[in-house]
């Protein structure tokens, strides 16, 4: 009997090709489209689920919807809003992967008698020949690499996950899509956070937490001098230039957000540079935490090539990152992910920069 494998299918080309490849390899692939943010979001819409269903049907696969709307609201969307209200800039995609795609879906797969969940993510998993542990590695197509969103996966998750596209470049995936005659082959890709389709983060925060909005406050410089007013700190992120409503001789940027005093602090471009960051709630993909200090390449945002740094491991799951060269706009709430070459060592959440 062929191996039963669950495929997370969004309706897009990547997960469709992943599913088709598994079917071709002889898996009994079962497609699941997760219903998370509901309609009005870019993913998980009825149209996407229908696309996934049609693709699955064309491949002779069973397909189901997995409804996690209540959990998603609580675990992802409310946390997303609370992070903005705390002056941070969250990345909900990490939790969506860690909890929903590769925890709840793995749980469901086990009920189905399937040992693995596959997805169309661009990342690779292999075995470390020395330790026998699973390694999470960047995609062969560096421009598509999604490991920044996967760093919280644990060893037991990695051993139950398949990324069929990890060794391919996007053009190969498109070629496979054409070869399989997948009707989503030329569909546009999603880049935004799925439940913020138009990029209006503040409106989403206001919808999720209408009663917790902080309201107007001061825009100040580093010395505390009031330069203007803002409509709520959830409209801002570190490094932001637009929407400040200030008329200054030099361009100014948000350099930090002071949630406690409901203030947005601005500075000049050079004020955004930092050489040290504090990273909290660190998880180490490749097994345990290193002893004291290691060298690594550190990415502080998706699409960033990363900067060499020294990592000092503290006792409370936090890491002090000292960059070899200044990095721009270290943004609290974003992830810092640590790499050794193409191997993901781990990562955590940026608490703040240390002056």
């Amino acid at each position, binding site marked *: 009997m062929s191996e*039963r494998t669950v495929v997370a299918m969004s309706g897009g080309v990547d997960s469709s090709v992943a599913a088709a490849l598994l079917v071709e390899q002889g898996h009994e692939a*079962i497609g699941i489209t997760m*219903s998370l943010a509901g*309609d009005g979001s870019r993913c998980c*819409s*009825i149209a996407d*689920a229908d696309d996934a*269903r049609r693709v699955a049907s064309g491949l002779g696969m*069973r397909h*189901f*919807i*997995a*409804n*996690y*709307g*209540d*959990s998603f609201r609580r675990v992802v969307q409310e946390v997303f809003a609370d992070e903005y209200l705390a002056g941070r800039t969250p990345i909900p995609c990490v939790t969506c992967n860690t909890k929903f795609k590769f*925890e*709840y879906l793995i*749980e*469901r797969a*086990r*009920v*189905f*008698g399937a040992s693995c969940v596959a997805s169309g993510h661009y990342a690779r998993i292999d075995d470390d020949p020395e330790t026998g542990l699973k390694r999470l590695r960047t995609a062969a197509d560096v421009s598509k690499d999604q490991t920044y969103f996967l760093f919280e996966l644990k060893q037991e998750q990695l051993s139950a996950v398949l990324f069929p596209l990890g060794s391919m470049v996007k053009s190969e995936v498109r070629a496979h899509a054409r070869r399989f005659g997948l009707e989503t082959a030329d569909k546009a890709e999603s880049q935004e956070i799925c439940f913020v389709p138009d990029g209006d983060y503040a409106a989403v925060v206001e919808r999720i937490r209408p009663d917790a909005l902080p309201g107007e406050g001061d825009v100040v410089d580093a010395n505390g001098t009031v330069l203007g007013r803002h409509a709520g700190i959830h409209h801002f992120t570190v490094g932001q230039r637009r929407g400040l409503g200030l008329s200054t001789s030099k361009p100014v940027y948000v350099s930090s957000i002071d949630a406690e005093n409901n203030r947005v602090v601005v500075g000049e471009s050079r004020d955004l540079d930092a050489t040290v960051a504090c990273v909290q709630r660190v998880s180490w993909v490749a097994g345990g935490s290193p002893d004291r200090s290691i060298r690594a390449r550190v990415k502080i945002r998706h699409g960033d090539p990363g900067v060499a740094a020294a990592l000092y491991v503290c006792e409370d799951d936090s890491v002090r990152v000292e960059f070899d060269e200044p990095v721009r706009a270290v943004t609290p709430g974003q992830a810092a992910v640590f790499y050794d070459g193409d191997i993901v060592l781990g990562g955590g959440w940026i608490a703040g920069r240390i002056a």
Partner: protein
Amino acid sequence: MRIYLDHNATTPVRPEVADAMDVVQRSLFGNASSVHEEGAAAKAECDRARARVASLLRVEPADVLFTGGATEANNTALLGLLAQRTEGPGHLVTTNVEHPSVDAPLEWLERAGWCVTRVPVDAEGRVEEDAVVAAITPETALVSVIWANNETGVLQPVEAIAAAVRDHGVPFHSDATQAVGKVSVDLSSVPVDLLSLSAHKLNGPKGVGCLIARGGIAFEPILLGGPQERRRRGGTENVAGIAGLGVACELAEHELPERSSRYRALRDRLWEGLQAKVPGIRRNGSAVFVLPNSLNVEFEGAAGEILLQALDLEGIAVSSGAACASGTIEPSQVLLAMGRSPEAARGSLRMSVGYGVDEVQIDQLLAVLPDLVERARRASTV
């Protein structure tokens, strides 16, 4: 071999029905409104089916109005009856466990200014006859009570309600879609004015049903067109579907007492087996006033959605809640109306037996379900 235990969703078409429809499709293509021989043959086929439906329900053939299914029948009963009212918006009495094809027209009427009283069911899923009667006012234009619920199978005291409503001089409608073919629906002893049913719930084809409209009760057609169905429903007759409905009703009439007891024995075997093998379960709805084929069970701490999908992969079809447009599953409004929590509603499955189900299949379900429930309880984040 698949095991199909979702006969309240739809039923397999009986070979006798398919054969009768096949004959019509292949050789009786005439338009039943045409004067010529082809038309007359089609008309005769419709009349034969009308007589069969009337015989099953013990009504006059002229009371049978063929529709495109129960949804159209319910819409016609509610909107058609009230459209001919001249006094303006009035009052309606119904329950809070009606099928969406009754609920949605009622909501439409509410937007048009009508007032609707939804008598709540108790924890067993039943309304009290007295509560329905007490809701009637001088403005009440219609009382509509579902005969048997699609999700729980719970039977309402329709006989008593119909008689009491008749005493108040108010027209009475019942959506009997789930009941017909499973239990006796004998309108010679129940004073129902309007009654809806659908062929595909009793081993007939999809896309055809009928509205029983008795005693010359007047209503406006909601499908405006030709003079078909005595000017009560425009549109060329679906002769093959109507013939199929007729045969399905004839089979039901011949088989009914035996059919009911066979379904009951299978359903009881399933429930007894579940009680013996699966801890932490609870039956939803009355165990007495219930269709013989229906069983709705809460599996505490397990997500019905996951169980349903896992069973499907084991080759067994059951149901959970009501599927919405995207294929996601919302907690059953019917179970919520019975006072069950959203978690309990999400942990519930509907199993409904019917034609082609046997003991071996029930035992196969009982063999796989305990382990699946156990696994699902470990993975029930929703």
